[in-house]
């Protein structure tokens, strides 16, 4: 890969990531002790988070349904994309009408991805409610959107690049801050 080199600073280690996911799972369990529930991940790392949450909630009755969304077709910036995004399959294998859905993503930033995901879910049917679970809320919202369950809250600058890494997708659990290397450094 070309482009600027990034200096990476660790923000959260594997234990903190695991604790964050556990906290989110606990929050979901408290709010929904029983009854049907679905966890839907936003590609790519939201799907990994949804899978982890589903594992932790597998002893609920009934165990949560799982789904995945690729929001590419609901983005508001197609005009600015110079390359064709690779669209992965969206998979919602349960009836959305009347469902209680916890939407999952790794990072909550501007809120635009969540806006797109909510629009997309509603095109599958009319859920009873949609909640939002994120591992990291890094602030800097551009839309009036808030998470229902948050693993960690991080104070970041708009220009920072926050990367969440999951075992399933990246081989390790971590959250790191990436900043472009300054020229000559």
């Amino acid at each position: 890969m070309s482009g600027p080199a990034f200096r990476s600073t660790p923000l959260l280690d594997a234990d903190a990531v695991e604790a964050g996911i556990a906290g989110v799972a606990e929050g979901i369990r408290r709010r929904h002790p029983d009854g049907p529930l679905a966890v839907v991940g936003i590609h790519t790392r939201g799907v990994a988070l949804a899978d982890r949450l589903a594992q932790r909630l597998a002893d609920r009755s009934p165990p949560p349904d799982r789904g995945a969304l690729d929001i590419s077709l609901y983005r508001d910036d197609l005009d600015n994309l110079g390359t064709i995004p690779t669209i992965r399959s969206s998979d919602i294998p349960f009836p959305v009408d009347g469902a209680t859905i916890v939407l999952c993503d790794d990072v909550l930033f501007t809120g635009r991805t969540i806006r797109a995901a909510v629009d997309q879910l509603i095109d599958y049917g009319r859920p009873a409610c949609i909640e939002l679970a994120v591992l990291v809320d890094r602030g800097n919202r551009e839309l009036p959107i808030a998470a229902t369950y948050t693993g960690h809250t991080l104070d970041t600058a708009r220009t920072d690049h926050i990367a969440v890494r999951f075992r399933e997708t990246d081989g390790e659990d971590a959250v790191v801050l990436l900043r472009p290397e300054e020229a000559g450094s």
Partner: protein
Amino acid sequence: MSAAAAPLPRRKDLLDIESLAPEEVVQLLDTARPFKELFTRSVKKVPALRGKSVLMLFYEPSTRTKTSFEIAAKRLSADVTNFAVSTSSVVKGESVLDTVETLQAMKVDYIVVRHSSPGVPNLIARHTRASVVNAGDGHHAHPTQALLDAYTLREVLPDLAGRRVLIVGDILHSRVARSTSRCMHKLGMEIGYFGPGTLVPDTRPDFARGFTSFADALAWKPDVVYLLRLQLERMHASFIPSLREYHTVFGVTPARFRQIRDAGIWVMHPGPVNRGVELVDEVMTYERSLINQQVENGIATRMSVLYSLQPVTEARADDEGAGP
């Protein structure tokens, strides 16, 4: 990043298959898959092209291709306008470029063109910022038909490399034969042609192998037989003695159908079918006939094409000095 190759830049127009790199063909086909998945949802529409306008500029009659493009554009939430050519000033002698200038002023984002003269879509593309999609120009090209054919075949044969397709029929008059065979060749297939001697072009691309009888062609063991439509409206008596003779020599007769079925060969046809000419009725209900899937896949493939192209926006034109 996944293991996928680096993303490809978006192109402005889709005019033919020839100018596409094999990986662009693959990307257009891969992108069609999530669009097809939409068709099982209650809301079959996505907002990807909301606020964009698509103009259908058909200088030649077409029902199927035009409807397919219209549905594709509407499922992407674009606004669709039909430019009724026969009732417009074209009949008063307005040139194609005059028409395009008018359309340019209407600020359309995509133009879908069909014309009886080869090269008209290219001409239009050079003179407009809109993305131009060739929906068939004379005998030259019909790229979206080729893509939907390849997409349909990939659903049943995921790896086309080394597979064989036999194209049967009126190759000289067929933009489908040109585009589809090129597209399948780019995906690594071997191409065979069998058609009326007078109709098989001398300019048959060198990657294609010619046959002089249906029996020889079937002995080549194709995986797919692609039957071209005999274009009755373009036919003149001189090319073919009679429809009955065409059927006997080049058509899928009951005897040939049994051979095809026994060998498990897939059958394709771009439609509409002339029953009793290119094929007998039983082929339509054959479990390895892909003819109906081709129609459904046409919409998904055209959605992929419209979604993947990138018109020149005013801002970018000013930046880059592009556009007219």
